[in-house]
């Protein structure tokens, strides 16, 4: 039966770019384990001859003509949503190094 440890929870959090508090590191293993144990019931369903469903509308690769149209929002307005400094019409992000 699936059982997540604190170490695994820390690893998943790192993958998801979440910094957990010590309280969360204590709470989440049990809560996430209870969810995973609940969904484990899916393993008892025989799906050996079943196709996976990823969409239900019948639409695949919805394409359109590449024609110019009015912009939905202006670049400056979009830049204005950032809390970070704007330098030369670009967002200055924290250094990746």
């Amino acid at each position, binding site marked *: 039966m699936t059982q997540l440890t604190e170490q695994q929870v820390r690893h998943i959090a790192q993958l998801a770019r979440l910094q957990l508090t010590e309280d969360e590191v204590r709470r989440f293993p049990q809560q996430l384990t209870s969810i995973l144990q609940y969904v484990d019931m899916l*393993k008892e369903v025989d799906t050996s001859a079943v196709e996976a*469903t990823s969409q239900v509308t019948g639409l695949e690769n919805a394409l359109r003509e590449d024609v110019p149209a009015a912009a939905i929002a202006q670049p400056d307005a979009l830049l204005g949503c950032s809390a970070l400094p704007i330098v030369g019409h670009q967002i200055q992000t924290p250094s990746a190094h």
Partner: protein
Amino acid sequence: MPLATITIAQALRKLRMKECSAQELALACIDRIEAMNPTLNAVVHTNFERALEQAKNIDASGGTSLPLGGIPYLAKDVFCEAGVPTTACSNILRNKTYTPPFDSTTTKRLTAAGAISLGKANTDEFTMGSSTETSCYGVTRNPWDVTRVAGGSSGGSAAGVAADMGLFALGTDTGGSIREPSAFCNCTGLRPTYGRTSRFGVMSMASSLDTIGPICKTVEDIALVMNVIAGKDPLDGTTVDKPVPDHTKVLTGNVKGMKIGLPKEYFIEGLNPEIETSVHEAVAILKDLGATITEISLPHSAYATATYYVLCPCEVSSNMARYDGIRFGHTVDKPASLTDYYGRVRSEGFGSEVKRRIMIGTYALSSGYYDAYYRQAQKVRTLIRQDFNTAFRDVDIIAAPVTPNPAFTIGIHDNDPIAMYLEDIFLVGQVMAGIPAMSVPCGFTKTGLPLGLQLMGAQWSEELVLRCAHAYEQATRFFEKKPAL
């Protein structure tokens, strides 16, 4: 009768007969918001000045002849509206008050049709929840009993309509978030067929499951709103190019010969006996009106919630990746590195339920677990969908409870995510199949809490579902009862 209590259909008649003005109607709803919101916490951002300006223009320009000309409404706090704060009730967007520079297709269509947005309705954070308890603004209280939840995630929308703060509200339904709060608040709510309404400009939770729909006072009002918001949108590649009918045309009251199925898997141990009775009574009324009733089986129903709580978190973990503190939202000072920045922004910005779903999704999609969780859930989704397709060969409509319990007490599911997830047990199978489903008022508990009847149809059968719901509603008129606020 106070002006704000009327339905959309009644309001349109009054406005066109010049018995009231759009400004009077908007002000009547604004008065309700100002009077009741301190108690209910249904509305989290208001838009009154612009709304009154719009109303004035509609009055001046004869705009009441538009399909929804002069009708005030609330939009759930995930619908982007240019210049109006839209925060998904999350600290990650609240802290820098995200104000989108563009409109969702749905609010844009409503504005063009003359409807007037009064503000944003409370929701669970990024729509993740069944009670609005995960909102960063705090819980919405149920107008019928303020110690109880209004449901979720569209709890603010349903409570707002029940308390006459708007003539209707927009909600989203990913795993029941329109139907459950509608049932808890004596409202009428429709989750349309996936692909019928545009998701463009609505903050996503699970893109293959999210739908946009109305919460109203009556079925006729649902039809009036669907006439405006349904249809293909070039900006949402998952909308389908099918003609949009006049949904009001089918509201004939006639259900003679309609075949209604009752799925035995929905009448299980743990279902509240008063709810069970109310659904059976509702079906008996439909039978009296000329429908035929048969028991049917949806054999994989017991797996629907588990399927949902794999697929939804997987899609959540992907969709929530965009909240990185760069282009919008929360920020932090003096990060040690970009990774540190992401981690701190997201940890400070997201609440516990969002973090849990991101982590479950990250785990289920990770190498070595993908086939066992995500792939398997997609396959079980196929089986659930086949159950519905098979059932709809024999019946036109499936009738069932909306929830296993009436509105629950605030705080009762704190720290027990599974107990909260099980509130959705009757609401997620339809999501897997992408079919339309609605909640219609079907009575009250002995203690006065509203109950809902769920009616489902095959894909693209909104007209049939609305016809059935309307006939039942007109025979019972539970929607007329108002909470004592």
